[in-house]
């Protein structure tokens, strides 16, 4: 009986420790705020890149008729575009999506996240032909973002909001919800890279290092002949294929690493990979959303230390070149080091 009591007390302490770990301080506030900005921006881009063709893609007289599109919806799938087939309803919803995305991008917060989620899902479900992996990921991540404080940074009143969060005494359920949402976001992103890396490493074409050669020659993704030419080089093509697999498979391990430089290097490598995808494959929305997702891989303290590390660079970039004051004729210019001191 005594043994059971000791065991039960120890178990209870462990559970408490777990609860305290998730409910005392909001984590990954910066990464989630960046993700919010990028999802909002990517949705605006999604709408504006085909603004002139909006009727063709999503309108009531689209080639993908509302009847056909609604029949393609899965069970429990929804789209507000199917509520009415009127032009006015379509225009209202479409423009509302752009406005809501802009508001979500700037302000964030749970209500705007919900509005953004409903409108984004509606737009995506209206025409599923043109969806890609990035849209799929955004659909999932925005649901998890409903649990989080997405406006803890880079939003009006963010500083006050953070101060208010810190003033709440002791562990809270709201904090726990945020952290569980943050966990789900990071876990989902890790799954994306783990699965993607696994399938690549299992493929013969990737093993042979020629996958990027074929990808660069698929008409729909061939944005640059120089890129296609480079991928035809056996060394460059193989290196890019292998590096892609390596950084994808490394992601789950990097986020679990206790070393900040590994997390930072991993995130920066992935951002580089996605910038390349945007520039050379034309997958701009996909690349953007993946960059947003990668931002959640770094902890808040990683961002802070990175911000401090790049401070000299920032200073150098923001410092304006000053002209030396005009000297009266006949006087001698002070030596250079003194001028620097005077300026300071």
């Amino acid at each position: 009986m005594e043994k059971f009591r000791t065991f039960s007390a120890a178990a209870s302490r462990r559970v408490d420790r777990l609860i305290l770990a998730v409910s005392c301080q909001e984590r990954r506030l910066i990464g989630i705020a960046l993700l919010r900005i990028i999802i909002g921006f990517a949705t605006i881009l999604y709408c504006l890149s085909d603004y002139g063709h909006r009727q063709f893609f999503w309108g009531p007289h689209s080639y993908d008729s509302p009847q056909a599109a609604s029949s393609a919806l899965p069970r429990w799938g929804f789209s507000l575009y199917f509520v009415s087939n009127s032009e006015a309803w379509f225009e209202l919803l479409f423009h509302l999506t752009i406005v809501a995305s802009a508001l979500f991008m700037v302000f964030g917060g749970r209500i705007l996240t919900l509005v953004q989620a409903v409108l984004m899902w509606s737009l995506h479900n209206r025409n599923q032909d043109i969806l890609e992996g990035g849209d799929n990921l955004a659909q999932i991540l925005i649901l998890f973002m409903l649990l989080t404080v997405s406006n803890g940074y880079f939003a009006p009143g963010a500083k006050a909001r953070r101060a208010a969060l810190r003033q709440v005494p002791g562990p809270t359920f709201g904090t726990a919800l945020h952290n569980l949402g943050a966990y789900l976001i990071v876990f989902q992103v890790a799954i994306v890279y783990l699965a993607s890396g696994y399938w690549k490493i299992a493929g013969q074409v990737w093993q042979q290092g020629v996958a990027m050669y074929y990808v660069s020659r698929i008409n729909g993704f061939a944005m640059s002949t120089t890129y296609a030419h480079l991928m035809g080089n056996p060394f460059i093509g193989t290196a890019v294929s292998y590096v892609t697999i390596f950084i994808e498979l490394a992601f789950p391990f990097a986020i679990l690493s206790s070393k900040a430089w590994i997390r930072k290097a991993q995130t920066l490598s992935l951002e580089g990979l996605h910038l390349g995808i945007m520039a050379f494959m034309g997958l701009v929305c996909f690349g953007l959303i993946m960059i947003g997702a990668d931002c959640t891989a770094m902890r808040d303290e990683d961002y802070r230390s990175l911000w401090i590390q790049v401070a000299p660079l920032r200073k150098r970039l923001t410092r304006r070149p000053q002209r030396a004051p005009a000297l009266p004729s006949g006087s001698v210019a002070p030596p250079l080091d003194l001028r620097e001191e005077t300026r300071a």
Partner: protein
Amino acid sequence: MGSPLVVNEPPGGGMVPSPSAGGRSPVSVRLRASVLLSLVPVVLYTLACLVYNAPASPAKTRLATPVNAVINPYFGQDWMLFAPAPSTVNDILMMDVKLKAGNSEGETTTIPVDIEEPIDRMPRSNRVMPTKLPGVLLALQESFTNYANGLNDALKAPKAQQPALEDALSRRYAAEFVELQRFLSIRAGTMYPDAQIIAVRATFDKRPITPFSERDMHPAPKQPVQGVLQTAWMPYVSGVAD
């Protein structure tokens, strides 16, 4: 203005209070219950997502029903992204049109025109905000390649079963056929604005990408076009938004 990233943490603000050893727990019963309850769906999603994205296995097959119940429809996902093998062929969509030109009485059938290549090139004209039009062709190619495969399978079945199989296939792909008909109608209307268009027809082909080992050959080896499917004539649909 201060840095947006530097936060002045209050003393011990980031610290997690440790459960007092032996004393009263800092976690209230209500908080404990609510956090533990919220952990249930999180753990379920974690497990379901891992299994859903795992490669096929007997274990995955046995777990498919509960896993799909958690994942679908809101968390459905596929992260194969150009893997295990990127496509080694380029798709071609040819369209021919039956029309009456000007005041002529008789019908004319145009020669098949590749409508895929110009659409695939369109994103290059605006690299910052590329159009999603190639995505439509990608979706059509995928659907009709699957349809063609299904049709080939149906033709291998015993003769008596073939009509029923073909009928089932047509019903399954009815929405895709309507989509294709409407899409081709817009393209035909744009290509022949002064003609009276009667019907449109699609031909799906594939051209292999020059293999890596032959990429530097001079002259470049010609890759033969492989036919996938030719549809029947489909009546022109007017009033589809461009």
